[in-house]
């Protein structure tokens, strides 16, 4: 997870024709450790107007929600060891998809509470923007995933991968849902070009303006964990997850995830930030009807073909 920051900085560096961090350790590989140590030793300012309880709690909620959501991603098939079923991930829930969507939407509490409790106007605006953006795109995310669940006929992520391992990956059967998911995932994780909640040219740093030291790091880590989770989910739902020839399951999942992580970094290096009204119009007036039409079309096609 920490190496996501190293990966991002190196890739962005290359995309901008410079080197990126390369001094600490071989090829800059110790840079994340150095950053973490620095953040540990930083003073943690709690502004006088901040809420005493919610201010430290908000980043913890963000990070906890981000970590807990990762639990249902399957790394490999369920195997039997000494008669006991061992799931290929941390857990294989029947409602895995619903669990993931539910838990990851808890993260918005961290953003909005962090923004409100800081007692700073920039934080408040950033928090509100973050909340509005995340909930708007969560609908798109949910509707895109429902279409896939309709094709798969199950909410268990292992079942979804199993359905693809024996047939086509769902990116071919559900291309519109995949594109919707991709846009919504970038917006959900507040990454460029949808990084409006922390648009530094307008809002200083958005909801984490007043945060420093380890509390800031919590928000930061949560964002990267979320990026990794949505990448893993994209690989699982649309690109058959761990299934693939020759290599064992976790390797395939990792390769597919890495491709998505690279895409995230690439988007950030390439695209300028949207305006806020454009962002909201895109979600409510374009993507939401599109997602509904896609879902209904899927339902009709499934009804006809089965």
């Amino acid at each position, binding site marked *: 997870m920490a190496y996501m920051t190293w990966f991002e900085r190196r890739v962005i560096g290359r995309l901008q024709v410079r080197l990126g961090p390369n001094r600490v350790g071989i090829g800059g590989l110790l840079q994340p450790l150095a950053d973490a140590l620095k953040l540990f030793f930083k*003073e943690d300012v709690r502004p006088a107007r901040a809420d005493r309880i919610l201010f430290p709690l908000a980043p913890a909620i963000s990070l906890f929600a981000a970590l807990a959501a990762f639990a249902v991603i399957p790394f490999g098939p369920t195997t039997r060891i000494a008669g006991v079923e061992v799931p290929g991930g941390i857990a294989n829930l029947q409602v895995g998809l619903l669990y993931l969507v539910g838990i990851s939407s808890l993260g918005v509490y961290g953003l909005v509470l962090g923004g409100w409790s800081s*007692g700073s106007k920039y934080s408040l605006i950033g928090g509100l923007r973050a909340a509005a953006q995340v*909930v708007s795109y*969560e609908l798109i995310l949910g509707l895109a995933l429902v279409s896939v669940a309709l094709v798969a006929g199950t*909410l268990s992520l292992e079942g979804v991968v199993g359905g693809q391992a024996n047939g086509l990956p769902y990116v071919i059967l559900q291309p519109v849902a995949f594109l919707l998911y991709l846009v919504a995932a970038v917006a959900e994780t507040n990454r460029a070009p949808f990084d409006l909640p922390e648009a530094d040219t307008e809002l200083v740093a958005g909801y984490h303006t007043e945060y420093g030291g380890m509390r800031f790091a919590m928000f930061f880590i949560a964002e990267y964990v979320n990026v990794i989770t949505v990448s893993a989910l994209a690989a699982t739902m649309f690109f058959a997850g761990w299934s693939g020839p020759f290599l064992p399951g976790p390797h395939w999942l990792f390769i597919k995830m890495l491709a998505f992580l690279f895409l995230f970094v690439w988007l950030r290096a390439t695209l300028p930030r949207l305006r806020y009204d454009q962002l909201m119009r895109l979600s409510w007036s374009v993507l939401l009807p599109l997602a509904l039409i896609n879902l209904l079309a899927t339902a009709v096609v499934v009804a006809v073909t089965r």
Partner: protein
Amino acid sequence: MPTNYIGIGLFILVGMGFTGATFAAAALIRPSNPNPIKLEPYECGVPGVGDARDRFHIRYYVLAMLYLVFDLEVVFLYPWAVQYDKLGLFGLMEMLVFVAILLIGYFYAWKKGALDWV
């Protein structure tokens, strides 16, 4: 299968533990030298004006209500999607009616300008 939830529970505990331990470790080793100026809300070089617990724009509330309606719709769609094979044509028709009712409200909100941000 309840055994699956044991894994989830453990993972959640580890997540909480990691968060808590990081906070505790940082609290032990970081310096703390507050002073009144440092504790003021951020402002770019000038004294801040007003309180942050201010009024904000009504459209955030409208958006929250719209979100609630459509998020509930999505939640209802999940079990429908899983059981779609068993429900058959009846399920398809029911969902068309359900979505159509919501779409009427959606277009009403659109016409009323609830989705405009400028």
